[in-house]
């Protein structure tokens, strides 16, 4: 069992080089594991690597041992890792080019035509890196919300099996969407998140840097998210441009998606 809490240090570290400069951001995170410090470090690195692809070295800042009320031990490591925050990327030819990084938030619409058309448009304009975060709601979180004693219906609490199935389906949809982005010419990473879309986006932003957020939703009447108006909330909290792709024609657009 492990837990990771990121603490982002926003001071960039600039390093000079021959003809182009590079700027790196240092991220500090604390990871904990019940078996040992090495395992904690591996968990912390895996968490950051979900959306940072160029990690090389992580330096240990603090090491500690936590004992809980029930006698369990937690091995904790606080470490610093750096990643490139400027947008220059070296090409195999030796030249550098500028890349734009997009955070895509999509769940049921991850395979939607409107979203992938937009992605293809972007890839045609410049080099792009996409990170797709897919918020899913676990059935076990929903079950307690509805039960109707009058009709005799009671929500059966969903067990681990149904949660696992939901996550497995989501991972599949995620892989399919990432493959499509790569086929279109973009660099793509992604992850499934079991929190609401705004929280999911903010968590990823904490550990990476992006130029723009693309929020992909169902038409207003169908989308559960839009009652919370995540686009506005994200614009407020991130100062990043937010592009809202609303899939209009559910049947056609979502032909590439799984029915949930």
């Amino acid at each position: 069992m492990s837990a990771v809490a990121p603490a982002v240090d926003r001071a960039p570290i600039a390093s000079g080089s021959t003809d182009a400069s590079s700027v790196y951001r240092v991220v500090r995170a604390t990871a904990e594991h019940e078996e040992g410090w090495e395992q904690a470090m591996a968990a912390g690195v895996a968490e950051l690597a979900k959306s940072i692809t160029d990690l090389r070295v992580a330096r240990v800042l603090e090491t500690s041992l936590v004992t809980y009320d029930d006698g369990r031990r937690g091995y904790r490591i606080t470490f610093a890792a750096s990643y490139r925050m400027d947008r220059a990327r070296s090409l195999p030819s030796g030249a550098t080019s500028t890349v734009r990084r997009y955070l895509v938030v999509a769940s049921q619409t991850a395979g939607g035509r409107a979203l992938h058309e937009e992605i293809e448009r972007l890839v045609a304009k410049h080099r792009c890196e996409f990170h797709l975060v897919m918020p899913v709601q676990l059935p076990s979180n929903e079950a307690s919300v509805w039960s109707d004693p009058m009709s005799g219906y009671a929500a059966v609490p969903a067990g681990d099996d149904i949660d696992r199935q939901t996550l497995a389906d989501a991972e599949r949809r995620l892989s399919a969407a990432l493959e499509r982005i790569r086929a279109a010419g973009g660099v793509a990473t992604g992850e499934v998140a079991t929190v609401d879309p705004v929280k999911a986006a903010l968590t990823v932003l904490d550990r990476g840097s992006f130029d723009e957020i693309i929020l992909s939703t169902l038409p207003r009447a169908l989308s559960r998210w839009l009652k919370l108006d995540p686009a506005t909330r994200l614009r407020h909290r991130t100062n990043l441009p937010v592009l809202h792709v609303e899939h209009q024609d559910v049947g056609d657009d979502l032909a590439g998606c799984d029915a949930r």
Partner: protein
Amino acid sequence: MAGSVYSVVELIGSSPTSWEQAAANAVDEAQRSMGEDLRIAQIVEQDVLIEGSEVVVYRAKVRLSYKRAVAG
């Protein structure tokens, strides 16, 4: 009357398995090449090398001290 003088050496050991092994590798090497009777190794820095999303090497910088033979 001369007091004791110690040399201080820092070595960086590495291992694909653990920091314990990395530190042990550094101490073994110091023992082998310096031939001193080394007792305490202080861990002064630890880090890891990463490839993709995996840790591939654990590194430990160890500080070792040993007594110099001082004349007089």
